[in-house]
C-alpha cells in the first residue's frame, strides 16, 4: 500500500486515541480538583493535567502562568493553538480520513465525519459543567465507535494492522505519561497507607485509564500504590497497561512483517521492549527507580514510532 495511506491510517488512529485520553485526563482532573483540600484537592491538579498531556510549554506560550481550570480546559479541549487539543485531534483525524477515504470502511468514515460535524455544536464560550460533561462523554463515545467500527468492519490486512499499531503506540505513550507525572505518589517512601489523600490520587490514576473497577477485580484488595503501578505497567490483563500495549504492537508488527515477507527494526525493537516488560518485577522497578523505568520506556516507545516511520511510512 501507499506509504502515505499507511501513514494516514497510523496517525488517524493515534489522534482518535489521543482525543480519548485527553477527555479522560480532563475528567479526572476536574474530579480531583473539586475535592476538599484535606482529600488532596488542589489547583496543582491542573498543572499535572498539562504535564500529562505533554503540552505545558505550549500552554505557557499562550496563557503564561495563568493555570486556571477554565484555561486548561479550553486549551486541552478546544484551543486551535494547541496542536493536540481534542478539537485538533478530530480535525486532523478527519482530514486524514478524507485523504484515505478508499482505505476506510463506510462505518469508520461515518463515525469520523459525523463526530466532526457534531464537534461544531460545542462552543468553548461559557461552557457549563454539564455541557462539559456531555462533551467528554461524546469524545469517549466517538473513540469507542471508531474503534469498534475498525474492529468489526476492516479487512485484516496491512491497513488494519497499521491503524492498530498507531493506536497502541499512542495508548502506551499515554499510560506511560500518566504514570510519569504521578509517579511520586506511587513511591513506597511517600506512602501513608490508608490516608485519604493518597487514596484519591491513586484512584484518580486508575480512573484516567478507566481501571478503578478492574483493579478490584484483578487484585481483590484495597488500592495500594505498587499494585496500581503493577496494573498499569506489567499486568497483561489490563488493556491499557504497557505490557498489553506491547503484546498488541508486537503482534500487529509481526502480522505486517509476515504479510510483506520481511522483518525489520520495528519488529526487533517491539519484541525487545515486550521481553523487557515480561522480565520486570515491580520490586526491581521500584528499586532501580520507577521514574527512570518509565522514562526509558517513553524514550523507547518514541523510538519505535520513528522506526515504524522510517521502515514503512516515508
Amino acid at each position, binding site marked *: *500500500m*501507499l*506509504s*502515505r495511506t499507511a501513514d494516514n491510517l497510523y496517525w488517524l488512529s493515534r489522534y482518535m486515541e489521543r482525543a480519548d485520553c485527553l477527555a479522560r485526563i480532563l475528567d479526572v482532573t476536574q474530579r480531583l480538583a473539586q475535592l476538599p483540600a484535606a482529600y488532596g484537592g488542589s489547583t496543582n491538579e491542573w498543572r499535572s493535567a498539562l504535564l500529562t498531556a505533554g503540552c505545558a510549554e505550549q500552554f505557557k506560550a499562550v496563557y503564561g502562568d495563568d493555570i486556571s481550570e477554565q484555561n486548561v480546559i479550553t486549551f486541552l479541549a478546544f484551543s486551535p493553538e494547541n496542536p493536540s487539543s481534542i478539537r485538533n485531534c478530530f480535525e486532523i483525524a478527519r482530514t486524514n480520513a*478524507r485523504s484515505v477515504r478508499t482505505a476506510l470502511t463506510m462505518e469508520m468514515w461515518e463515525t469520523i465525519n459525523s463526530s466532526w460535524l457534531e464537534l461544531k455544536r460545542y462552543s468553548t464560550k461559557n461552557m457549563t459543567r454539564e455541557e462539559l460533561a456531555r462533551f467528554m462523554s461524546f469524545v469517549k463515545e466517538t473513540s469507542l465507535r471508531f474503534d469498534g467500527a475498525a474492529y468489526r468492519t476492516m479487512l485484516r490486512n496491512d491497513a488494519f494492522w*497499521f491503524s492498530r499499531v498507531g493506536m497502541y503506540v499512542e495508548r502506551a505513550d499515554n499510560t506511560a505519561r500518566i504514570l510519569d507525572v504521578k509517579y511520586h505518589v506511587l513511591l513506597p517512601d511517600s506512602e501513608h497507607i490508608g490516608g485519604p489523600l493518597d487514596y484519591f490520587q491513586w484512584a484518580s490514576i486508575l480512573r484516567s485509564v478507566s481501571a478503578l473497577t478492574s483493579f478490584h477485580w484483578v487484585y481483590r484488595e484495597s488500592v495500594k500504590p505498587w499494585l496500581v503501578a503493577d496494573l498499569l505497567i506489567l499486568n497483561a490483563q489490563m488493556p491499557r497497561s504497557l505490557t498489553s500495549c506491547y503484546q498488541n504492537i508486537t503482534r500487529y508488527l509481526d502480522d505486517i512483517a509476515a504479510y510483506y515477507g520481511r522483518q525489520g527494526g520495528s519488529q526487533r525493537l517491539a519484541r525487545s521492549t515486550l521481553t523487557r516488560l515480561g522480565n520486570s518485577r515491580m520490586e526491581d522497578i521500584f528499586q532501580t527507580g520507577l521514574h527512570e523505568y518509565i522514562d526509558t520506556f517513553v524514550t523507547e516507545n518514541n523510538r519505535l514510532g520513528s522506526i515504524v516511520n522510517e521502515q514503512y511510512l516515508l
Partner: protein
Amino acid sequence: MSVAFDEMTNADGSIRPAYAALSRWLSNVPPDVLDYRRREAEFIFRRIGITFAVYGESDAQERLIPFDIIPRILTGGEWRRLSLGLEQRTKALNLYLKDIYSRREILKAGVVPEDLVYQNPAFRPEMNGQKVPHDLYVHIAGIDVVRVDADTFYVLEDNARTPSGVSYMLENREIMMRLFPELFAENRVAPVENYTDELLATLKSLAPGTSNSDPAVVVLTPGIYNSAYYEHSFLADKLGVELVEGRDLFVRNDIVYMRTTEGPRRVDVIYRRLDDDFIDPLAFRPDSALGVPGLMSAYNAGNVTLTNAVGTGVADDKAVYSYMPDIIRFYLGEEPLLKNVPTWRCREPDHLKYVLDHLNELVVKEVHGSGGYGMLIGPRADKAQIELFRAKLKQDPNNFIAQPTLALSTCPTFVEEGIAPRHVDLRPFVLTGSDKVRIVPGGLTRVALEAGSLVVNSSQGGGTKDTWVLEES
C-alpha cells in the same frame, strides 16, 4: 427562438415510442410517491455524497448537485448514430494533436490558422516532436452534445483535458436501480456499470513499451481540497488502483515510482486529474506543490503514460472547435457525422460585424471560458449587458466566438410544480485505448432546472439525470 423539441412528447401530444412505458408509469404514479422517492434519492446521495461537499476554510458547505429522478431516454438507433459520431470526432482530435506536435500539416495546408495554435495558452512547446505512447493523446474525452430535433445532435464542446462527471453517470444509475426497480423491469436499459472496467482496460492498453507485463496504473489527484476529489477517490476505488498525490510519486533515472510500505514500486500509467500547469514544477509552474518533479522527463523518455497526454488543451477550446468539421475532413476524409453548432469567429472581421449587428439574438462565449461563466445570452440580456459585451468584443475580438441560441431539447423533469419539460444536454465519455475505442451507452445528462433556462452547469443551478439507452429486445 423556436419551440424546443421535447424528447418524450411530439408536437401533436403523442408520446414517442421510447418513452411509452415511462409515460404510462408517470401518469399512474401518484405525485406524493414521486416526491417521496425524490427525497429518498437525496437522502442516499447525502449519505454517500457527503463528500461531494466543498469545504471552505471553517465550515462545510454541502454542495449536492440536484438529481432528477425522471430518466432521459435514447433509443438504440439514436445511440448508435451518436456513438459513431463520437468515435469519429475523437479519432480526429487524436490525429490533430499528433499533427500539431509533429509535422503540422494542417497548418501548412492552411486549414487551421497558425496563431490558434502558437498563441493558444494551452499549447505546450515542450511536446514538440515528442513521441507519446501509441500516438494517442486524448484517451478519455467528454464530448458535450445537445439535441435540437428528432434527428439532429450538435456537438457543443469537446473536453479533451480532464473531463469530469462520470461518477455521477454511475451513481445516478445505481440510485435509479435501487429506487425504481419496476421501471428497469419494463425497459431494456443498456448497463453502464462496466465503465470502470472498460476504463481500466483502456488505461492498461496505453502502458509504455518499457513497462512490465502487468502495468501499474494510478489515479493522480490534486488532493482533498479539489472539488472533484470525490470523483477521484470513487474512480480509484472502482478501478482498484492507488489514488496518489504528487508527493506519493518520485522520479529516479526517468522512471516514476510510488512510495509504498514495501519500498518504491514502478508506475506505468498515470490517470491524472491535474492540469498540465501543475504536473511537474520543473517543467511548468515552479510553485506547484501538487506535481511530481521530473515527471515530464520520465514522460519524454517514454517510461510513463500520462492520460490524457500533456498539451491536449490546444484541441478543445472554443475557437478550435469551430474548425472541427474541417479537421475531421482533413484527417479522415469523411464528412462529420455529428454537426457543429454554426459558429461566428469574432477574430474574422466580417463575422465580427455580423455578431455586433445581431448581439440580441446570439450567444457570445469566451474562447477559453468554461462552466457557463463569461457568456452573453443575447435574447435574455438587458441593454447594459449587451453594451458591455459590445465593448468587450471590439476591444478583444480574438477572445470570443458567437453562436445562435439553440433550442435545446427538453425532457420531462420533476420540479416543484410537478412534471414539466426542462432543457438538457449530454456528456458521453469516449475511451480511446491502443486496442480500440470504448463508449458505454449513456453519459451524464445535465438539466437546467429553472423553467426556460439553457444553462445546465452545476455551478449555476443545473441538475443531473440518469441517461438510458434502450436496447431493442
